[in-house]
């Protein structure tokens, strides 16, 4: 059985379900059977000591909108790619921006930045002074290089 830790309402009136990370896949499967066929958004939020992942689900037939929230300490969350295809790019984006690893994603690589980029920009401890440049090699692969020194 899925245990709902907390059920609250957001400022916009949408129900928010807080559940355990281990129950996520089971809970989402139930919700999909209930008619939530549209995974709209996956948002990771860096809360400094832990990471919070919000899933926004919508049902076309019922015109209902819910938010499912899980927290993770070790930066891993189960992937939902088996339920919704749109989870693919959403999860890759969150991996790129926050470094959250989605277990079971077949091809988890960065969405916007090149693979050699150091750091995850949307983390609160990301060093903005670390200037990196993107180059393209002769095979058309992108790679990131560092600012050599004093620079600007």
């Amino acid at each position: 059985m899925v245990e709902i830790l907390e059920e609250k309402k957001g400022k916009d009136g949408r129900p928010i379900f807080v559940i355990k990370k281990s129950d996520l896949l089971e809970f989402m499967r139930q919700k999909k059977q209930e008619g939530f066929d549209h995974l709209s958004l996956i948002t990771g939020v860096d809360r400094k000591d832990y990471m919070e992942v919000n899933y926004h689900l919508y049902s076309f037939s019922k015109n209902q909108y819910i938010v499912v929230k899980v927290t993770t300490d070790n930066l891993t969350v189960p992937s939902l790619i088996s339920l919704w295809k749109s989870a693919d790019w959403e999860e890759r984006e969150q991996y790129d921006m926050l470094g959250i690893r989605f277990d079971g994603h077949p091809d988890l690589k960065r969405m916007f930045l090149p693979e050699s980029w150091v750091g995850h920009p949307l983390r609160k401890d990301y060093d903005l002074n670390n200037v990196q440049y993107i180059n393209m090699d002769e095979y058309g692969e992108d790679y990131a290089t560092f600012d050599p020194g004093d620079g600007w």
Partner: protein
Amino acid sequence: MSNLVELNMGPQHPSMHGVLRLRLKLDGEIVREIEPIIGYLHRNAEKLCEMDYFCDNIVYFDRMDYVGAMNMEVGFLEAAEKLLGVEPPERAQWIRVVAAELNRIAAHLVWMGAFGLDLGMLTPFFYCFIEREKILNIFVELSGTRQQYNYMSIGGVYQDITPKIIEEIKEFIKQFPKKLEEIANLFLKNDIFLSRNRGLGVIEKETAISYGVTGPILRASGVPYDVRKEEPYLVYDKLNFDIPVSQKGDNLARFMIRLEEIRQSVKIVDQAITKIPDGPYFNPKAKKSLMIRLRGEGEVYARTESSKGEFGVYIVGDGGVKPYRVHVRSPTFKNLSIIPAVAKDKMIADLIAILGTFDLVFGEIDR
């Protein structure tokens, strides 16, 4: 045994609508595998938003969908105003609807012209841009700029709409439908255009839903989903308009949906422009000197219908004067993810035609 040729298309390519790069595997002229690679216009607007006051964030949204910036501003303000607890006065809401719908017409005209160019039709492009220019001239008077307006602000709009601008909009609306039919005829009476698009790039309803596709593409596949009807924001519930839906799901259906949407937007502007009530255009709670002191706590997701699909903004506030986390649900980002499934096993020239109907704007995909 495989004799597939690997081809790199983009990021600099005339038919890529910005900086999309496709890694293709070709079997002769047939595309067997497609991998979109994006990020060449990535500025990380979400991080920039975290570093600025709520009222200053609007400029980053202007630069997302740069052909439909008014819609982006509406989308951000729907979320931000809920979070900050500032309600725009009624006059401002009507002005926003007029501006957003005019911008939707302009954005669809840009798409229509560019789609013609993709298929080798040069003439409609100019006709579309002549009409779009008239809308942009109205926006210049309204906000001062042609494309990145920064016109709406928290608690209203930055400048009132004058009777002169209202007259100009009325004049535009009066002459536009005739011109639109002229443009549509350039496409729809062209046999080559019809035979190239009919039955091409069919997206099934289930596939579209699974990939999270929204907007005209989803409506062309038979789902009557439009946020303006499902969850009306601003004053859309007081306006009378229809949502065009098609069951075919091919290129031509997507063209017809967008064409009909322009007509519906004309209808909306026509109604809204006469209904703008008198009163303040700005909520005094958010006047300029107080604006940077507004604090937001909690989390808000607001969705709006931009010209490309469901544009959602998710803001988390920690009680400070700056947002803690902003996440943008950009419609074209999700629409693009269906390309590998749709354009597989098609000719490479058809891939361009299918991409053309997706209305890609890279400011929004890469953010």
